[in-house]
């Protein structure tokens, strides 16, 4: 008690584990409040509670037990969802038993079978049962309808599910497949704020759309994409070296981080965008990781130019491609390793570099620590993470990830610098990023004020720069030019904004469309391709003016 008295309330905290019952937790909370302690949390199990769609703190009424304990006695039907009141809240359970003893009370349960002190009808243990009740196809719906004072008790078990997460995050686009909306959830991985996780092995996490109000994406919100589950041991990366050789190299050299730091240094702000960004929004859907809008980011990259690094080994005149490998590996030895190559023209280009830092910090572990290849203007499949191997070659690479994957129909997306050694009659490797734009505020489904609001977002392309961004507030009928902020570089996100001025109440459909200095404009219809790449149809969001 002396210790408590001598400690400032803002340096004390209470964390409640899974073994505590509600009444005990309330007693602890009352004690902490009396001591002036505001640092409290009961979500050790990761329950999806307390946060609104936009990431703000949820209002108290969204999670309050709003009838009060005594109110239980008024109920004539109770549905338990993911709760075991006998363990979780014994006082509440005693009230339910008292109510059952006193008169007709029907209790039903969805979730694990629980042993209670009154009869309970077991309806099921999955979300489908809940959906059936909600849409009226379940017999229990009628009972709820007929009841004078039905009551639903939602336990934290229900809040642990990914489905609960999807329901809590309406900013997952409604255009995503239902299954994706079901599994997507916020997760924390090393070096990161919570990101939208689509898979954990290999880790694939996208950046929440709110991050794209600014031109530079913070490292701890930058998306994560891996193909193979054999991630390198973090400790082994501290001493990673870069081996350079190949039949078209003058000699073989191994460079350390210090060697890279000793070369002339370059700094460049560039967009790193997954080829499959927005695949999940393609209609009809195509197989693959169902990305929404957030498989991209823009950062300031620092390190030597690739051509200066290659010069350390020397390039023979017969070189046609430079091949790249990283420290991540397949789970099975038979699975093709993830390898990529660049044509000499892009490998030697002024902008192509090796990043030893990202936004003035070491690269996050899952963004390629300690070094990553930076290929501005090209999709991030070429941006090899944990880069440890460079081969200067007189022949084109023959690897699944180049010759079979990451390809688009030949000629469908014209490019300025063709990847000649990998093009064939039917398909080309995906290379240059197509012009695109994204509104990050407001978010689809949000309410906006009739006095007017500001639309903010980013636009980008393969490096010609953004000429204009047009926005429609009436579903595409009329358009107006947005204000473009200063350009941070031709490969960077260009931020834009538009003040709407006063607007009438009601539904509003906002569209956005960018045009590049290369005279490319986002197409109204997707150029359909099997892998759902290059989805740059104008974004459409629906908001309600209130």
């Amino acid at each position, binding site marked *: 008690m002396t210790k408590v008295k001598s400690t400032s309330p803002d340096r004390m905290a209470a964390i409640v584990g899974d073994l505590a019952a509600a009444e005990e937790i309330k007693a602890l909370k009352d004690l902490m409040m009396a001591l002036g302690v505001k640092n409290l949390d009961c979500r050790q199990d990761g329950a999806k509670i307390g946060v609104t769609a936009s990431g703000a703190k949820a209002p108290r009424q969204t999670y309050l037990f709003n009838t009060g304990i005594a109110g239980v006695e008024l109920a004539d039907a109770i549905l338990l969802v993911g709760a075991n009141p006998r363990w979780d809240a014994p006082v509440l359970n005693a009230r339910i038993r008292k109510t059952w003893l006193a008169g007709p009370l029907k209790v039903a349960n969805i979730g694990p079978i629980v042993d209670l002190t009154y009869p309970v009808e077991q309806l099921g243990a999955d979300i489908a049962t809940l959906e059936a009740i909600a849409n009226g196809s379940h017999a229990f719906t009628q009972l709820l309808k007929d009841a004078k004072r039905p009551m639903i008790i939602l336990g934290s078990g229900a809040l642990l599910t990914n489905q609960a997460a999807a329901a809590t995050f309406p900013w997952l686009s409604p255009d995503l497949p239902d299954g994706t909306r079901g599994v997507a959830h916020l997760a924390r991985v090393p070096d990161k704020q919570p990101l939208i996780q689509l898979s954990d092995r290999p880790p694939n996490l996208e950046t929440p759309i709110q991050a794209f109000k600014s031109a530079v994406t913070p490292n701890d919100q930058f998306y994560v994409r891996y193909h193979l589950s054999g991630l390198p041991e973090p400790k082994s990366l501290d001493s990673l070296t870069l081996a350079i050789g190949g039949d078209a190299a003058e000699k073989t050299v191994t460079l350390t981080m210090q060697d890279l730091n000793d070369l002339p240094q370059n700094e460049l702000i560039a967009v790193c965008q997954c080829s499959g960004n927005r695949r999940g929004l393609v209609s*009809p859907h195509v197989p693959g990781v169902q990305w929404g809008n957030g498989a991209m980011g823009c950062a300031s990259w620092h390190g030597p130019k690739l051509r200066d690094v290659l010069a350390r080994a020397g390039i023979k005149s017969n070189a046609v491609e430079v091949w790249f490998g990283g420290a991540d590996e397949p789970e099975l030895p038979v699975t093709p390793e993830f390898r990529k190559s660049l044509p000499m023209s892009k490998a030697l280009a002024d902008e192509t570099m090796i990043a030893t830092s990202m936004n003035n910090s070491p690269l996050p572990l899952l963004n390629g620590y300690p070094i990553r290849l930076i290929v501005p203007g090209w999709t991030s499949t070429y941006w090899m993470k944990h880069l440890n191997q460079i081969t200067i070659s007189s022949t084109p690479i023959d690897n699944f990830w180049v010759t079979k994957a990451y390809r688009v129909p030949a000629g469908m997306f014209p490019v300025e610098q063709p990847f000649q050694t990998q093009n064939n009659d039917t398909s080309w490797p995906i290379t240059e990023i197509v012009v695109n734009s994204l509104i990050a505020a407001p978010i689809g489904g949000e309410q906006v004020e009739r006095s007017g609001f500001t639309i903010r977002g980013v636009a980008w392309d393969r490096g010609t720069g953004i000429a204009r961004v047009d926005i429609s507030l009436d579903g595409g009928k009329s358009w107006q030019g947005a204000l473009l902020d200063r350009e941070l570089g031709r490969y960077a996100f260009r931020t834009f904004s538009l003040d709407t001025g006063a607007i009438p109440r009601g539904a509003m459909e906002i569209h956005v469309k960018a045009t590049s200095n290369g005279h490319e404009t986002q197409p109204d219809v997707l150029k359909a391709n099997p892998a759902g790449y290059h989805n740059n149809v104008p974004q459409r969001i629906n908001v309600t003016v209130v």
Partner: protein
Amino acid sequence: MKARALALLLACCVASPMLAQSSLAQSLLAPGDGEDAVETSCSICHSLSYIPMNSRFMTAKVWTAEVDKMRNAFGAPIDDDNAKQIVSYLVAHYGVQPEAGGK
């Protein structure tokens, strides 16, 4: 449902070790014939979330192509019988009829 009758109640700090361990999230895949084969084979290389994530829009033909890709391109150790069982499970629980899928 009678007006003003439905009270949505949410007991916030309700948690127990039993719930944490047997929560609704535990079985990621729908129960059914072939579930074990899918869990055993697919999870060698990747998390099972790839399956529900890619639903429901793939026809039997598209699911077959995906399983073939895992076997042929990535070398997943799945024999013919096993592959048939896996595809039929995926189609039954995470697939669509050709008309509905548009593919």
